[in-house]
């Protein structure tokens, strides 16, 4: 598509957005002359790209710089001195001393001829075409000076074409195909296709799905989706083909409806932890489309269906735009002014502290909000409430990562950047489903797998990554849920006992006493795969082969997700993974490392910002007086030296009557946290629950104050992705609720401070909050908005030692000094299957929906997933007399729910699987309150259950839906 000049930064540098035709290369410098001008570029660069760097745009149609050159349109022909003919500049690499001419009489004629042919089979309805002004075919017709088309239909009939539904005599044109608008976000109009193959290559090279092909030859060739239409095909709606298409053939529906955008602002996706950069393309304050930004260092110009298309929730009619209060949760909501809502909340909070003590209230920060917002929310509890009762939803996902990596390496973060995967030779994916959870990373990984990297998947389910087209060597360790530690330790056992570890690295970089202890421990026969096979369900030989492949395969990288952390031994598995990386010296350089795939967009940031009750920003324990002093000096208050309550502890304390008030920003704990009935009981026992969100979420059913939130399009700030990359979020429209979220928190703090007589906060821009973070937190010392503006993004630590940030961690030494091996004994979870609950339930998610679905359920993404289903193995289904699509009752010792069954052998016998995107299913009614031993991260991934036939929703579900409706009533304004 045509490029936009970004108004706040033109010219070259990080924001240069010109399509250079072919991808950048690295290599030794080569100097050549183009149109009399000298240029030096890396070896392997195309002549087209070299010309573009001189500012000369050679006409092109089939080339674009996100794809390798294809050389089919011939529009980019050039003349090269001493060479015959007119080679295509996109496919011709540069040579030293080459002399190229891009404009000659011969070339002009040739290009006009090419364009004439294209245009003769193209509807000339430019003025009313959706791509008008944003069409490369149009641009090229102009660029080559096409003035007339000489092809005329012979007198005897019509000129064969693809664009007229009927010929002049009214007969149907067999070459014409109707528009396919089955995809909710884009259309495919074959009549406009120039068969440049860009879409097909984008789907293969960029996305890795291989949904498209070109069928037929010559005049008959067409783009085909291998199914009835796009929606029914393998297409995952990433939009890469739409972006690559030079014409209106593949076109966003939003552009068809609204017209072309007039400006664009670079910002960051608010869905997952990949943290893709986007250009939000605007008309005034209306968002026309999101286009992944090619200089985004996490995504390199790619995106998934959520980030590119699923932004409709931001303007959904369900959004609440006015503050509301109520005295008790059985009453309807009452809309009030901001002042009234805030002073109502402040009085209640202060009253609760007077009555029940300083530690009777707390906060939950959001992993969806910005760093600056999160920082303020934890500051609110520490500096204004005077306690450490702050926690975040990372508690329920990646808290074991913090503990495990902190103990072994000394810091709680992934070790690499996403680019690193391009250098990996063997990739181990444990308890993660990247194609669904972290799609853009998955595309980058698949690219590497197609190039021959080996894959090891440790997961109870056969995830889509294992079905990667053109996948080479792959190992699937389909373990029984809950046996991660046993499997990872068995891998380590093989590596140690077969002598495949790296003694030099261990001697230089690791604590040797700890290694000796560990080595003796792990060498014991009880960790041998033959010994653990019966327990884990992984055949010993399969495991040995995978272990050998990992240890001997070159650069080994480990990526893991919630399938690792959300267990009673979550922290232990993280440590086991760190052990594995250390013993094979897969740490501290490109292509290797330990990489937690973070769930939500700002999980990393919310942890960095001191959301946990025991840690101030930068992972420093509240017990340390020297750390407290930094904040005490900055905030002008004394800080509590004792750790505060974690989310499950808050709920327990609420049930006990000692925790009474909660400010919950941008989280839906009722739906997302385990053991729903216990969460509901905790919330119901509180006297003041303040929910700050876009929607009346499930938690709001128990709230007394509702403060409307702003979407990521409506605020300034930063998100930190899974690579520790701090990306800017930019405001592209005014907040519909009136205030950005950091402003709302500040107003709440000031309302409380008014009651208590404290000094009010007075931040006027998130940049000032970042300045305070930098001043108090060593790993952020060098971060400021000017730097982010200049560099686009930066990975922490960013300080005097690393002024440009740190793409790779632990390069010369571990953050804690010596890497520490930790003994990782397998301890079975108390959650065991038995006669009453013979199956093990594990949970996950799918591509089109996000987390509890509050956003994605309010977009067209529901066409792909409109309900949660239970995946069950044919064998278990048959035993229970279940057919595909039947309603089933799913019960555990915590509760029961009903949903439809999907019979599939992706899960092993004895294991069932579901997602938790829909509140009506309430999969968390089933999950128990068992948790990780170190961090209380809930054990979502293992619940003993029974499945039986049912007639429809359970009584509990029906009651729940009725109650939810009741508690969402809003009193009509007078």
């Amino acid at each position, binding site marked *: 598509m045509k490029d936009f000049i970004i108004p706040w930064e033109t010219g070259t540098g990080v924001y240069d957005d010109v399509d250079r035709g072919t991808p950048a290369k690295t290599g030794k410098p080569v100097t050549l002359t183009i149109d009399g001008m000298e240029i030096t570029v890396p070896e392997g660069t195309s002549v087209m790209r070299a010309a573009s760097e001189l500012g000369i745009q050679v006409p092109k149609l089939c080339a674009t710089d996100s794809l390798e050159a294809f050389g089919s349109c011939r529009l980019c022909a050039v003349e090269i001195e001493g060479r015959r003919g007119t080679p295509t500049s996109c496919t011709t690499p540069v040579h030293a001393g080459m002399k190229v001419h891009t404009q000659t009489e011969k070339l002009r004629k040739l290009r006009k001829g090419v364009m004439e042919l294209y245009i003769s089979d193209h509807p000339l309805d430019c003025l009313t075409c959706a791509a008008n002004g944003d069409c490369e075919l149009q641009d090229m017709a102009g660029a080559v000076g096409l003035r007339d088309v000489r092809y005329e239909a012979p007198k005897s009939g019509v000129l064969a074409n693809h664009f007229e539904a009927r010929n002049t005599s009214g007969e149907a044109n067999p070459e014409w195909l109707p528009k396919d608008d089955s995809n909710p976000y884009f259309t495919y109009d074959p009549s406009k296709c120039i068969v440049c193959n860009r879409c097909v290559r984008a789907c293969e090279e960029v996305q890795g799905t291989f949904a498209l092909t070109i069928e037929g030859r010559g005049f008959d060739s067409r783009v085909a989706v291998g199914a009835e239409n796009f929606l029914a095909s393998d297409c995952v709606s990433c939009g890469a083909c739409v972006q690559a298409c030079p014409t209106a053939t593949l076109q966003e529906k939003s552009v068809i409806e609204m017209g072309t955008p007039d400006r664009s602002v670079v910002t960051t996706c608010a869905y997952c932890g990949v943290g893709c950069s986007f250009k939000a393309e605007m008309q005034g304050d209306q968002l026309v489309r999101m286009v992944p930004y090619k200089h985004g260092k996490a995504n390199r110009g790619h995106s998934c269906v959520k980030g590119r298309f699923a932004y409709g929730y931001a303007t959904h009619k369900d959004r609440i735009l006015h503050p509301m209060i109520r005295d008790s949760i059985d009453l309807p909501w009452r809309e009030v002014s901001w002042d009234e809502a805030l002073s109502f909340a402040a009085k209640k909070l202060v009253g609760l502290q007077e009555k029940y003590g300083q*530690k009777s209230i707390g906060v939950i920060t959001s992993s969806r909000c910005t760093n600056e917002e999160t920082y303020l929310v934890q500051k609110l509890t520490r500096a204004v409430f005077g306690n450490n*009762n702050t926690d975040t939803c990372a508690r329920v996902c990646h808290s074991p990562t913090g503990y495990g990596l902190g103990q072994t390496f000394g810091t709680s973060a992934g070790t690499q950047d996403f680019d690193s995967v391009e250098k990996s030779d063997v990739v181990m994916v444990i308890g993660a489903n990247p194609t669904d959870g972290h799609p853009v990373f998955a595309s980058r990984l698949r690219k590497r797998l197609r190039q021959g990297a080996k894959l090891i998947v440790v997961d109870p389910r056969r995830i889509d990554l294992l079905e990667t087209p053109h996948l080479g060597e792959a190992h699937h360790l389909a373990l029984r849920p809950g046996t991660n530690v046993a499997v990872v330790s068995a891998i380590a056992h093989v590596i140690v006992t077969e002598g495949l570890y790296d003694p030099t690295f261990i001697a230089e970089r690791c604590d040797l006493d700890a290694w000796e*202890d560990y080595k003796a421990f792990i060498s014991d026969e009880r960790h041998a795969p033959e010994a653990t096979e019966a327990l884990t369900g992984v055949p010993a030989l399969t495991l040995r082969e995978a272990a050998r492949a990992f240890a001997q395969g070159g650069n080994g990288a480990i990526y893991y997700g919630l399938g690792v952390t959300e267990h*009673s031994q979550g922290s*232990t598995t993280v440590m086991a993974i760190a052990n594995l990386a250390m013993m094979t010296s897969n740490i501290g350089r490109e292509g290797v490392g330990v990489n937690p795939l973070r769930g939500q967009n700002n999980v990393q940031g919310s942890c960095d910002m001191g959301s946990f*009750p*025991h840690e101030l920003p930068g992972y420093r*324990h509240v*017990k340390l007086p020297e750390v407290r002093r930094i904040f005490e000096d900055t905030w002008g208050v004394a800080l509590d030296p*004792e*750790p*505060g*309550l*974690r989310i499950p*502890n808050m709920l*327990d*304390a609420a*049930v*006990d009557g*000692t925790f009474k008030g909660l400010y919950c920003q941008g989280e839906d704990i009722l739906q997302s946290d385990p053991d729903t009935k216990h969460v509901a009981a905790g919330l119901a026992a509180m006297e003041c629950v303040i929910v700050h969100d876009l929607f009346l979420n499930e938690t709001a059913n128990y709230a007394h104050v509702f403060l409307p939130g702003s979407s990521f399009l409506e605020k300034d700030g930063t998100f930190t992705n899974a690579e520790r990359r701090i990306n800017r979020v930019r405001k592209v429209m005014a907040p519909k609720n009136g205030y950005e979220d950091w402003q709302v928190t500040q107003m709440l703090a000031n309302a409380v401070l008014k009651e208590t007589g404290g000094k009010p906060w007075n931040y006027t821009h998130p940049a000032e909050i970042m300045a305070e973070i930098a001043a108090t937190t060593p790993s952020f010392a060098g971060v400021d908005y000017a730097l982010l503006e200049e560099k686009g993004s930066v990975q922490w630590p960013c300080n005097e030692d690393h002024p440009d940030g740190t793409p790779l961690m632990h390069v010369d030494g571990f953050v804690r000094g010596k890497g520490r091996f*930790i*003994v990782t*004994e397998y*301890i079975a979870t*108390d959650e065991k299957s038995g006669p009453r609950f013979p199956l093990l339930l594990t949970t996950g998610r799918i591509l089109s929906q996000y987390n509890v679905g509050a956003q994605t359920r309010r977009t067209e993404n529901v066409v792909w997933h409109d309900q949660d289903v239970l995946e069950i193995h044919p064998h278990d289904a048959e035993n229970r007399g279940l057919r595909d699509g039947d309603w089933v009752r799913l019960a555990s010792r915590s509760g029961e729910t009903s949903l439809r069954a999907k019979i599939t052998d992706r899960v092993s016998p004895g294991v069932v699987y579901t997602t938790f995107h829909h509140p009506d299913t309430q999969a968390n009614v089933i999950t128990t*309150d*068992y*948790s990780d*031993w*170190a*961090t*209380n991260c809930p054990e979502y991934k293992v619940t003993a259950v029974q499945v039986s036939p049912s007639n429809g929703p359970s009584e509990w579900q029906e009651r729940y839906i009725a109650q939810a409706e009741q508690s969402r009533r809003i009193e009509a304004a007078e």
Partner: protein
Amino acid sequence: MTDAKMVLMANQIASFFETQPGDQVAGVAVHLKDFWEPRMISQLKTYLGQGGEGLHALVVEAGQAL
């Protein structure tokens, strides 16, 4: 929280440190101090005072140090 749940959580911590080399009691004590909020610690102490039924030996010992 219920005593049963507290016992379970404390014992989980002990089961980890039980497998570790070095001072296991200190391991449990430090972990409890670093991560448990004061009212959880005091619940544990009260429970220990009442006999500490079902608590892992390491928790009992660590409890003295709290």
